[in-house]
């Protein structure tokens, strides 16, 4: 298996970006990633893209539509799509392009433009349900996440205040992120608890905002890293992914088993047997504040029901023992589904190469893990990276 490194990353502002087409967003991110790697498109052997529902951008086969913005013209180009999991999964797809020996340099570009979806991006989620069993009930995503959050709180006796701390931490961390959409240096736990109730126990400030944006990373083989003497690189040392049954009603929502399996796969590859000791920081997927906690447990970085205590004790602060979402996460920087790659894989790269600027974790970090979550509360994918 060939060693693969991330050697560059780029991302756009996360905002409502009506002025730009999906192609233009892709271009901006791809250009940024290539510039940071010191490469040109001619150096790229293959392009991988990641994007979530086509219905957001409102284009059928949107991967084909924006491939020129990604630099895919006249190159081997492939799009992968695992729902929200795409934010981390496309990097895994890029990894196998290089690890297999079929490519030496791969550009991975993720894009999402949610603002073109009217009246609201949530309307796409009316079409993600089993047409016979679920759809007649007219569910929406906030309801089912409310069920999952409720189950998590009830089984472990977790208080809402402890979950709200995650929103506060991430929105404050995001103040230091130049692409952030919903950073807030003054937010308090009280603000979260007093925000509008969407579907109990989910309140407005428990949720990340819909955004438009794109992100890109450049992956290269060990040989390219050596030959070009690339100093700013972080090695991909473990990858894992896992899907659970479509029948979300048939499983206990209290623990994301699919994340745990993906993590075990990645840890095995990265030769990590004691993740809590061997992993220095984490960028788990946090589209809702409780999901950061849920995923920390799925990533085996906290006991079941134990993640809220880590947050309360300050362990997951940027200067804590296990910094979690030092980027500001989806809660603070924004949630353009697949493009969250910039604050997941991208943040690992910037932290591990010491390029995170004001977001840099103050102590030395050597190993980071990131994870994304998607489909019907059923998809987990995990990437472990080392300095």
């Amino acid at each position: 298996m060939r060693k693969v490194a991330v050697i560059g990353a780029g991302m756009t502002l996360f905002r409502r970006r009506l002025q730009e087409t999906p192609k233009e967003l892709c271009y901006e991110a791809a250009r940024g990633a290539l510039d940071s790697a010191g490469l040109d498109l001619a150096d790229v052997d293959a392009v991988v893209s990641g994007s979530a529902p086509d219905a957001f951008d409102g284009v059928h086969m949107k991967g084909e539509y924006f491939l020129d913005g990604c630099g895919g013209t006249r190159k081997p180009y492939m799009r992968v799509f695992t729902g929200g999991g795409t934010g981390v999964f496309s990097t895994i797809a890029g990894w196998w392009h290089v690890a297999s020996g079929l490519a030496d340099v791969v550009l991975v570009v993720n894009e999402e433009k949610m603002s073109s979806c009217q009246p609201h991006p949530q309307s796409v989620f009316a079409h993600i349900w089993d047409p016979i069993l679920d759809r007649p009930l007219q569910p929406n995503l906030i309801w089912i996440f409310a069920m999952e959050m409720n189950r998590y709180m009830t089984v472990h006796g977790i208080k809402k205040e402890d979950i709200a701390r995650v929103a506060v931490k991430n929105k404050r961390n995001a103040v230091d992120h130049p692409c952030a959409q919903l950073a807030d240096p003054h937010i308090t736990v009280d603000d979260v608890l007093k925000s509008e109730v969407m579907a109990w126990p989910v309140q407005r400030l428990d949720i990340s905002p819909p955004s438009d944006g794109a992100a890109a990373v450049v992956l290269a083989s060990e040989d390219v890293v050596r030959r070009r003497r690339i100093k700013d690189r972080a090695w991909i040392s473990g990858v894992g992914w896992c899907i659970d049954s479509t029948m979300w009603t048939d499983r206990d929502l209290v623990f994301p088993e699919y994340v745990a399996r993906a993590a075990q796969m990645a840890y095995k590859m990265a030769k990590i047997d004691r993740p809590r000791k061997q992993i220095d920081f984490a960028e788990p997927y946090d589209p809702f504040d409780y999901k950061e906690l849920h995923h920390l447990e799925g990533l085996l970085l906290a006991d079941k029901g134990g993640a809220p205590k880590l947050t309360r004790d300050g362990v997951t602060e940027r200067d804590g023992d296990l910094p979690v979402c030092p980027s500001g996460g989806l809660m603070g920087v924004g949630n353009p589904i697949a493009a969250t790659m910039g604050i997941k894989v991208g943040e690992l790269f910037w932290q591990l190469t010491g390029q995170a600027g004001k977001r840099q974790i103050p102590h030395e970090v050597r190993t980071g893990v990131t994870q994304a979550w998607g489909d019907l509360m059923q998809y987990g994918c995990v990437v472990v990276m080392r300095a």
Partner: protein
Amino acid sequence: MGVAGFRPATPEYSWKELMFEAASRAYADAGVDPREDVGSFVTCAEDYYEGFGIFDEFVPDQLGAVLRPTCTVSGDGLHGLATAFMQIRTGLFDVAVVEAHSKASDVVTLDGVMEHALDPIWTKPLGGHAFVTAGLEADAYLRATRTSRKALDAVIVKNRGNALLNPHAPYGARIDARHLDASEERFRPLRALDISAPADGCVVAVVASDAASRRLNAEPVWIRGVGWASDSPTLETRDLAGATYARLAAERAYRQAKLRSPATEVDLAEVDDRFSYKELQHLEAIGLAKAGQAGTQAVKGDFSIDGRLPVNVSGGSLGCGNVFEATGLHRVAEVVKQLRGDAGRGQVDGAKMGVAQSWRFVPTATGAVAVLGVGR
């Protein structure tokens, strides 16, 4: 390999049941238990064809992939095969499964879905059907290569005729001059008979490493090379006449397969013929016919079952139906059938090396090529 469906409509099946049947057949053919032996599952699908916001959700149960590494590639089945090929080459897995299907008969607004793939700013507002892009391309190809309508007729007659020998092909027919004359003009120069009709179908492939294929006592067909490529997505800036995507994909696949002169080394080819001219255009692009000569060769009968290079012996998409993202994987299944000597009355004698080529249909300029062979 496992195949299910291949009929204009499959009202007795849901798409899940269609997948289940093809997967069950593939697992039986390979002698694998998906829950024990398979490391990774890959599905090739597009949301709008499926009618879902996130189709990836609906993949695992019927493939036996629950709580396993599984993913969707938004591409043709051959892109999925390439993905499985790469995954196995990393050493992370030794058995992977690829699935692709079409349930086109469920799609109420198929024309609308295809139009929705046109550039929303520059092309879609012109209000044309998505097949207009194929008409433009056909015109460009026929002019650039001075290919006659007779060559298109030869492709139609051959592929629909071949389909009569293939039990999986729903559109087999003896087409003669009367049918061709009576065929309505649709997207000039394309007539109704130049365009493949939709079909439902599912194809599942089990891909294994050398070691795993020995362990499973399989009779393997080897993937000697696989390549994929895209040309420009905008109609105005792509090579309309020449199918550059197919040329680039073939170059990569042949390089891996160490094929120096594919036209003489390949025993049969299955190329995308969802419009009749595409067969000729693709044969030239992937080096199986000389530039501008495919039409003449087609008229001479070079591509018939007993010709110099049998092409689309299965009946192609004109004969088997357009199964959308399953098209490339279906062609792999047909090449595999030939290389194993299982093609019955359609068997090409002594076939040892075959090529399967795919295109992602209108309005894309994306395609893939796989070189398949038997023997060490």
